[in-house]
């Protein structure tokens, strides 16, 4: 069967790709576009390692078909930093030692950033429930939750001065 020609926007850039019907957005990102920052931990939407934003909404790229990206905007981990300037949440993950092996980190950062875009004053419970779709086997989540909370506090501080 002929491949589909898809026009979309990825990390702000107009992007075209060819994909088969059954290819997931994750397959397309990783295998066709070399955006390997999104990870496949399960392929069933249970681990969140492939978290991306689709028109600003947090989704598992393994549960979205490549063809569904047509005409929409996709943000992946590669689009979180502005050039070489890290997003405050990326910096917070580094400062708090919120990663050990690092495989789940892109998903957590995409998901955490999505939370902070909606709620810059989350409680610990808010953070824990928002991130409940992202699995981390290394950290026990403590430092990840702290990184998100500290980042929110810092961003609030900056917003109040800005």
């Amino acid at each position, binding site marked *: 069967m002929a491949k589909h020609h898809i026009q979309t926007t990825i990390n702000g850039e107009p992007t075209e790709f060819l994909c088969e019907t059954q290819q997931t957005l994750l397959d397309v990102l990783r295998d066709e576009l070399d955006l390997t920052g999104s990870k*496949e931990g399960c392929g069933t939407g249970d681990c969140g390692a492939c978290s991306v934003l689709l028109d600003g909404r947090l989704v598992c790229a393994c549960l979205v078909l490549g063809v569904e990206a047509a005409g929409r905007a996709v943000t992946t981990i590669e689009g979180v930093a502005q050039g070489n300037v890290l997003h405050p949440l990326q910096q917070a993950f580094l400062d708090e030692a919120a990663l050990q092996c690092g495989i789940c980190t892109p998903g957590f950062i995409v998901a955490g950033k999505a939370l902070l875009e909606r709620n810059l004053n989350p409680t610990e419970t808010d953070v*824990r429930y928002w991130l409940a779709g992202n699995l981390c086997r290394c950290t026990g989540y403590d430092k990840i939750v702290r990184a998100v909370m500290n980042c929110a506090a810092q961003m609030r501080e900056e917003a109040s001065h800005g």
Partner: protein
Amino acid sequence: MGNEQATFRVVGTRPVRPDGVDKVTGRAAFGADYQLPGMLVGVVVRSPHAHARIKSIDVSAARALPGVQAVVTAADLVDLPSEVSSGGEAPINFRHVSLNVIARDKALYEGHAVAALAATSTAIAAAAAALIKVDYEVLPHVIDVLEAMREGAPLLHPDLFTTGVAPAPAAASNVAGVTEFSLGDLAQGFAEAEVIIEREYTTQPVHQGYIEPHAVAATFGADGTASVWCSSQGQFMVREYCAKLLGMDIGQIRVIPAEIGGGFGGKTTVYLEPLALALSRQSGRPVKMVMSRGDEFKATGPTSGTHVKIKLGAKRDGTFTAGEMTLKYQAGAFPGSPAFLGGMTGFTPYVFEHAKATCYDVVSNRPKSAAYRAPGAPMAAFGVESAIDELAQQLNIDPLELRLKNAATAGTRTLYGVKLPVVGYVETLEAAKAHPHYSAPLGPNQGRGVASGFWFNIGGPSSAAIHVNEDGTVEVVTGNPDIGGSRASMAMMAAEVLGIDLAHVKPTIGDTAQIAYSFMTGGSRVTFATGKAVIEAAEATVAQLRGRAAKMWKVEPNEVVWREGLAHCTRVDETTRAPFTLAQIAHQAGRTGGPISGNVSINAAGAGPGFGTHLCDVEVDPETGAVKIIRYTAIQDVGRAIHPAYVEGQLQGGAVQGIGWALNEAYLYDAQGCLLNSGFLDYRMPVASDLPMIDTVLVEVPNPGHPFGVRGVGEVPIVPPLAAVANAVSRATGVRMTDLPMSPPHVLAQLDRAKTAS
């Protein structure tokens, strides 16, 4: 350099890890992230049966499908003899490794690989896999460890005769081996007891649950040499195992370690790598293979499910008089469960004059167990620490006091015979007693559990190379995959010895052609053993730097000392000699003898044993049986924390894995021996909303066997949680919990049973 060194400049600080930016931006390349020109997709065909004879495999239809480039079966690997080899580190039977990678005559568990193929696309590979016809004769299977030990149980291996018993058995069985450890006179010990606790406990197999599935890219050249990119806990292990299974020389294979997305012991062996190599050898093209999560659960190693029997004797004042444990551990399809390690660790936190452990290694139709964080120790500790809690309740003694009364210290003889060196167990108990957590009030339906744990920590072979660059920046190359931040600690130890800024030290993980042999990242050994190699390499570099400075000053090397990153001349005469910086010496290296580097390979001895004590508060919902962890504190003797944030992370992560083991995680099989919950939805690992913050206390009793006092830290923290949680639930409900996992239906059933009984 002694570890009495009072102050450190770099050690003990919390810098950003050197590989951090790559990992928060998605740039770090993990196992599945490698792409080579012309690369094929490899897939594995797996047995749908728990136990079946493979009568024939017909690959012709698959091979004929356009796009299929290679098909392999066990016939493509070397038919190795069954023998235990001790060539590497731990003893290993490569026939078993090979048969686990791909079945030869029999499939021994659901998901056991029987064939593999490579094709030009994922879709073609999947279609071809469906065309491989395997003619199976389904055999009776056995899943449960006690069932497998019964006479008349379906036999997995007709040539398996129990080792460690005399006389040697005449008939084959599923009991691969019995290991015994004993101390003193058990009968006398129990005769002296005034109270005896005797209980049986069970734990379920649990998966390491790393988020990154096994993944490999391999290419086999026409000259017979091969390169492998993969995620593992040891590139040298992958190289050796692949060479053995494919009949190659070690020197023909180069293994380039990818970033590793978690391992916890589960990546200390090979699954896909030999198959990818065999497929590449046949097709002449690079082959990539990535395991699905379902296959991870069905075909890679969980740790053993166990049946544990504990008998504990004590005086009324709490003094232990005797301890006995009988451990029956599932090995999975091939021998090699960590039962003996349970036997060696369970009683080690305590002084016992009379004790015994009998450890059974039992095969059944499950995936072969693999190492998992302090292999074997958590299950034995679950029994021992639960029995101690019950004893504390019976004697009305505080559980920490009871442990303090019996705590092992330097010189205590362990059940495995060796006397303990300097250890900090008592210090962890004292820290637990003093922690505000221990005296915080509890509400209704809440309970507090206490448990301790021990792990040996290991040393072994490690290599490190330090290269001084022309501008005085420094490269540190080691051979151990960085699984949890070890690049940071390697760089920090080098910076400490060299006396330079951490920013000027760049740590790299070398591939098998770039650095000398290093044993795996495992056994909590890297910061200790590889760290020791790094320190020695840095010291060798300092010796060279002093020599070069001496040449520049035209004095003797022993007239130069190295202090705070500077060479100082100690000769006192009319010449003023301003100290040289490392950069100044590096600039002149060409004129003073060429490049400056330090290369060290060691077999590190002196690993310091580790002890931890955990406090856990739970609230149990009496209506649903649901257990909520409301507070958790992990306390551990870490020797010396090089990067305390990553040490805390080890304690937190280990504790949470233990909480998952205690509360949720288990393998569920149907009547045909097929796994029912082979995904993260039904194999329920803890998520963020299940947990509170995990408090940590780092107790530092320096290990005399390491220049900075480092002890391994990664494994101890998974040993106490099973009992810490169970003791908390038992105290909250008044019903003793002896079986894991304590899932809501299980807890509810126990509460109902207790209600009916009373």
